[in-house]
């Protein structure tokens, strides 16, 4: 699987994303600078975390207009996979590639800790390898993770199965205490209606190796790879 990891001025999780895709999952990875107008041959675009453009104006507000983003939109329109992590999720929201918007965490603090996610949809290309009933333990590190949408949009997103991950207890219960930032409905990760674009605030690329003692993030990468390999082999045969 060919992966393109975008790099904006201020991105800082791009190397972690490259490392996991390349060294842990054996994909070929290209780093793509924001000023490029074309993507190399790509199956999966990863939009990494960090502080693109310093989070000036609003997190992701300026990155969404970077030259490379037109190519990313086209890639998504053609069914290509896009995976936005943290600032990547914020960029996808600002670009209108995912519904809703981000606000500052309700307690106004930058939060850096491990949390648990309940998986709401096991059918997507990003979650099919996650065992039923498994909650994922993954780290978050953000100041603007408080997702919000209009009541109408929120209902539509629920009806269409677009909510992938919600903050929960280790046992998978959705409680206010398990929601670190006040996001609507404890939403931590969403897909688009087509199912090929995922945005999530937690960092699975920091939780995919046994050496780090936290590995649930790898289920997401495994899902992507499995689905890609299945699609590829069905095209060949």
């Amino acid at each position: 699987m060919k992966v393109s990891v975008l790099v904006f001025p201020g991105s800082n999780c791009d190397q972690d994303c490259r490392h996991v895709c390349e060294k842990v999952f054996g994909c070929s990875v290209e780093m793509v600078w924001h000023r490029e107008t074309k993507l190399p041959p790509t199956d999966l675009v990863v939009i990494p975390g960090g502080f693109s453009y310093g989070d000036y104006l609003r997190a992701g507000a300026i990155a969404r207009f970077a030259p490379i983003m037109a190519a990313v939109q086209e890639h998504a329109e053609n069914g290509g996979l896009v995976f936005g992590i943290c600032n990547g999720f914020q960029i996808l929201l600002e670009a209108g590639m995912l519904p809703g918007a981000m606000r500052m965490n309700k307690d106004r603090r930058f939060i850096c800790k491990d949390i648990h996610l309940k998986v709401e949809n096991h059918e997507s290309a990003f979650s099919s390898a996650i065992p039923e009933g498994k909650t994922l333990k993954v780290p978050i590190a953000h100041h603007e993770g408080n997702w919000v949408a209009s009541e109408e949009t929120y209902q539509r997103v629920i009806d269409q199965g677009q909510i992938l991950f919600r903050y929960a207890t280790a046992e998978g219960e959705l409680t206010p205490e398990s929601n670190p930032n006040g996001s609507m409905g404890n939403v931590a990760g969403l897909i688009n209606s087509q199912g090929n674009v995922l945005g999530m605030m937690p960092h699975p690329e920091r939780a995919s190796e046994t050496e780090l003692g936290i590995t649930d993030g790898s289920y997401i990468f495994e899902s992507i790879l499995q689905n890609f390999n299945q699609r590829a082999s069905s095209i060949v045969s």
Partner: protein
Amino acid sequence: MKVEVVVLPRRGILDPQGKTISEALGNTGFSGVSSVRAGKFFELEIEAESAAQAKEAGAEMARTLLANPVTEDFRVLIPSE
């Protein structure tokens, strides 16, 4: 031509900064402040042939970049000096 754009969180959306500032005002001894919305103020120098044109340009910039329509409202003013 100088154009001012004010961007504020939409009413009904939790504004953590506004809420904090409102509480701080209370703690500093100012009673009677029932709400605070904290936003952003942009002062733009725009080339335009008329105030109306400048205002519309400012609004377009606000719609496209300066404000997030999901969470923010904006207004555009031509300051009278």
